């Protein structure tokens, strides 16, 4: 291949400089995103591990109903235990200027210093004052986002009692890395994020102990025990010893924090898949744009190509020249994007980690990432450019030299016209637009696909958010028939519950439950599991079965689908559960979708094995005409009650409104940006191709506004089809992310909301029209004479 041919080809390519640059920009964005995200994840993994070390995160956590502290003093002496901390954790509310009754995670700790495990690192001020138990510590990011400083005054409300406190310290904590709920409670509390509405505060433990004391039993109690292990010890042995120290006090659940860490890392792996999906989407869009740009280059230089062929250059030589130059441009673009993407990704992840009180560590990016980027970047361009350059084969030199159109004119009425005629559309604009689209079906198809991809991604984002929030309320309405959910501070027996509720006339019925942590042997391995003992055939709570059936006889057990998947168990699996002093073999007969990652057994059967009645909470049905909120307040005021929640409170969205809005807006924004790039590129090319026709129309007397309306009409028609196709595309994308979403909500189902669909459709049309404005503006300055003289019509 001669240098002259390459030089000529280079000029031909750069005759469409703007479109080439826009195409390469999309390639740049694709490579940048891929490399940046790939740089972020290793840093996140390493940083999370480092953070766990810095804050002395627990390896094991026990949540109990209440345990006297002197009863568990022996835990620190167990071989293999590096550190122990205990605290009293309750849900309450705080009020401060601008925020009335803000939900709060309230941790009761010893004043004076940080706990040994799950440290609190002072950012400002001091630790809790041992001489003044009306001081509190506030988490740093919550403090900064709510304007709280040292000396700020707040009102704490817990167990129905209010008291004033003063902020003496602002701390860094990684409490948010634990499950976002009070595991004592049956239903998740509203989701918590660093900037969310739930305040993490620390207070002198004696305050909570004093307020919760009912006059019997020990006063110095805790309900959370956090243990850190020394390396090299058998963790199962240690946990068994710890549980033995706590016995006979019942526990709610246990948490292996290393399991939590691995589930966080599992989310990162799912995010890895999302990276490929997202980057792949950008490369797909870039390929569309490259295809149309190269098509335009070839078409506009058809005469030059015809002359080149007539001079004796082969088709393959001409094609190779195009591909070599385009490949070089793409390679240069990729080589620029890679060294920008990596530090860019690290910078982004550093900012994200700071938001979660973590410091970014250094982590190497896998060399595979660079190789993939170097292959996919130029490769996608070459693949997209190959097909339009192949058209050179069909160019006849004589026709090309004369400037005759290479594309065959369409003959015959199009399907769209037939449909239009049948439904009464007779307007000339419609006919003209659909005929022109038929002339270049590929371009029209690319435009439609580009729009549908953009709208589909936006639709997916809003569908996910909508489904996320409605899935829970939909589940609750269908399967939970109670009005109130009541948790007790400590397990009660039936007569205690009866005497508690009998004076309240607005309670029509109630069903008891017990939440209990216990050990189980599953497939030969001993695991700590959470058990929910309920009346499985009761009227106030029903199950949504994924597979299997209800409990029909003794020794049968149900499990939540998320837990089943993580443990690798299925129907008919055997589990040996320890209840009381017995170990009983249970058979798994049903797998259910539920808000909790627990096993379910029959309440009566559990009481038999435990040898006593233990009721940690009840489902309550109020009488006809009663207001559940009022009844909830009445119940909450009872001494033994820790929390009383109505069904609507329990059904509130898992995502806060601002989080949901941010996700939906973010995804829609990205989607519209891609759509804008595609539509701008293709409409610009389309307008350039049709300039002779448009000039002819103006010569015939069509005003420029009418020409602009033709352009807008084409965009509207194409957008309409794109939006229709975007529905299945949106659902396809949503389905691809299903597994990811179901790690948060097992019963998650994407929802179709007509208003949302209309909103996305409107936004899509608006964006498409916006993208066609540059082309429309060019219409206003066509040189009619020049264009008509250079005729390209027939």
């Amino acid at each position, binding site marked *: 291949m001669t240098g002259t041919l390459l030089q000529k080809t280079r000029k031909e390519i750069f005759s469409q400089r703007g479109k080439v640059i826009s195409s390469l920009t999309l390639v740049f964005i694709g490579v940048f995103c891929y490399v940046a995200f790939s740089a972020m994840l290793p840093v996140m993994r390493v940083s999370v591990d480092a953070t766990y070390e810095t804050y002395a995160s627990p390896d094991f956590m026990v949540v109990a109903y209440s345990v006297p502290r002197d009863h568990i003093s022996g835990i620190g002496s167990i071989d293999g235990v590096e550190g122990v901390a205990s605290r009293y954790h309750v849900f309450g509310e705080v009020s401060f200027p601008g925020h009335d009754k803000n939900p709060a995670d309230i941790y009761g700790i010893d004043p004076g210093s940080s706990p040994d495990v799950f440290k609190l690192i002072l950012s400002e001020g001091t630790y809790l004052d041992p001489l003044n138990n009306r001081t509190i510590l506030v988490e740093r990011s919550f403090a900064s986002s709510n304007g709280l400083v040292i000396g700020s005054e707040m009102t704490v409300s817990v167990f129905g009692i209010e008291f004033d406190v003063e902020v003496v310290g602002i701390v860094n904590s990684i409490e948010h890395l634990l499950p976002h709920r009070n595991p004592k409670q049956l239903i998740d509390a509203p989701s918590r994020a660093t900037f969310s509405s739930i305040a993490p505060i620390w207070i002198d433990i004696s305050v909570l102990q004093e307020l919760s004391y009912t006059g019997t039993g020990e006063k110095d109690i805790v309900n959370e025990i956090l243990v850190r292990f020394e390396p090299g010890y058998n963790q199962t042995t240690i946990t068994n010893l710890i549980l033995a120290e706590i016995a006979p006090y019942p526990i709610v659940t246990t948490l292996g924090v290393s399991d939590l860490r691995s589930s966080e890392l599992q989310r990162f792996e799912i995010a890895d898949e999302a990276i490929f999906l997202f980057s792949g989407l950008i490369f797909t869009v870039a390929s569309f744009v490259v295809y149309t740009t190269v098509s335009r280059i070839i078409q506009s230089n058809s005469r030059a190509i015809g002359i080149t062929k007539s001079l004796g250059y082969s088709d393959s030589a001409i094609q190779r020249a195009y591909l070599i130059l385009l490949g070089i441009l793409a390679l240069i673009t990729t080589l620029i994007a890679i060294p920008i993407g990596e530090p860019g990704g690290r910078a982004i992840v550093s900012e994200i980690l700071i938001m979660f009180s973590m410091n970014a560590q250094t982590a190497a990016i896998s060399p595979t990432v660079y190789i993939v980027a170097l292959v996919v970047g130029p490769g996608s361009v070459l693949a997209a450019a190959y097909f339009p350059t192949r058209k050179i084969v069909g160019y006849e030199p004589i026709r090309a030299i004369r400037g005759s159109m290479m594309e065959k004119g369409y003959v015959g009425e199009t399907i769209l016209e037939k449909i239009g005629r049948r439904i009464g559309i007779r307007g000339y604009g419609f006919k003209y637009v659909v005929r022109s689209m*038929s002339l270049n079906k590929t371009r029209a198809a690319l435009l439609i696909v580009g729009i549908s991809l953009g709208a589909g991604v936006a639709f997916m984002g809003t569908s996910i958010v909508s489904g996320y929030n409605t899935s829970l309320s939909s589940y609750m309405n269908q399967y939970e028939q109670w009005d109130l959910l009541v948790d007790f501070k400590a397990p009660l027996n039936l007569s205690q519950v009866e005497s508690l509720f009998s004076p309240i006339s607005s309670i029509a019925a109630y069903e008891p439950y017990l939440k209990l942590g216990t050990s189980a042997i599953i497939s030969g391995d001993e695991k700590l599991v959470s058990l929910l003992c309920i009346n499985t055939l009761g009227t106030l709570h029903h199950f949504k079965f994924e597979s299997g059936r209800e409990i029909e006889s003794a020794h049968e057990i149900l499990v939540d689908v998320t837990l089943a998947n993580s443990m690798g168990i299925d129907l008919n699996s055997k589990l040996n559960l320890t209840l009381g002093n017995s170990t009983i073999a249970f058979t798994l007969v049903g797998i259910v979708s539920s808000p909790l990652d627990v096993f379910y057994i029959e309440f009566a059967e559990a009481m038999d094995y435990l040898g006593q009645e233990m009721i940690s909470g009840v489902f309550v049905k109020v009488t006809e005409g009663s207001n559940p909120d009022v009844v909830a307040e009445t119940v909450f005021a009872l001494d033994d009650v820790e929390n009383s929640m109505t069904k609507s409170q329990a059904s509130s969205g898992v995502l806060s409104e601002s989080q949901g809005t941010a996700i939906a807006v973010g995804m829609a924004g990205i989607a519209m940006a891609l759509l804008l790039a595609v539509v701008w590129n293709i409409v610009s090319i389309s307008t350039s191709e049709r300039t002779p026709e448009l000039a002819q129309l103006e010569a015939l*007397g069509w005003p420029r506004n009418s020409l602009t309306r033709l352009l807008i009409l084409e965009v509207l028609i194409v957008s309409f089809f794109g939006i229709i196709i975007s529905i299945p595309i949106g659902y396809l994308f949503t389905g691809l992310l299903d597994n990811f979403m179901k790690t948060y909500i097992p019963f998650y189902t994407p929802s179709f909301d007509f208003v949302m669909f209309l909103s996305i459709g409107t936004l899509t049309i608006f964006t498409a029209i916006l993208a066609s404005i540059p082309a429309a503006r060019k219409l206003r300055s066509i040189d009619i004479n020049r264009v008509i003289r250079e005729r390209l019509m027939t």
Partner: protein
Amino acid sequence: MATSTSLVQIEDLKKEYTLGETIVHALRGVSFEIMKGEFIAILGQSGSGKTTLLNMISALDVPTSGKVIISGTDVSKMSRDERTNFRRKSTGLVFQFYNLFPTLTAVENVEIGIALDIKDKHELRRRALHYLELVGILDKADNYPSQMSGGEQQRVAIARGLAKEPPILVLDEPTGNLDAETSDAIWALLKELNTKTGTTIIAVTHQTSVSKVANRSIFLRSGKVYGISESGEEE
């Protein structure tokens, strides 16, 4: 057939273009008058300025100086949009390369020239078919340009120009892309239309034989009129 009513008045028309650093004087002060119903041929070699002159008459372009008065209206001072409007109502245009829309049939190509002004779809179709019949190509009404010969396409372009029933039909080298026999047929058609409809026809061509059918021929050289001859006379 000429009448005494003046339709087009060209007064000291000048047009200059800048090509790089060179100023091209395409028209150097052209003046003449065209009467209603006349068939005028504008002749000249390449670069004589005939196409530029045609652009002024058809309001596609504006002069550097001078006036173009058509039906009493000075189009040389109009804005782009005003000229577009004027063109739609008052001028039929036919170009050398027919400039038909390849995706439209013959009848649709005629309709698109008048679609903005005639909203009644039946009237639109009736008029388009009428003028296709007038130019002798009614049987090709539903054919696409790729299914017609050059002469047939040019007839469609002429029908499109006539369909708006303009006072002036302007043709730029209408037979430039046709063989001799077809060219003669087109000129004969134009003469017939001029006689039948009374439309004033102004045709730019380099074919001197056109002067036989035209009422008058205006000869241009180097941007100036160097001769005007009556029908049948050749310069």
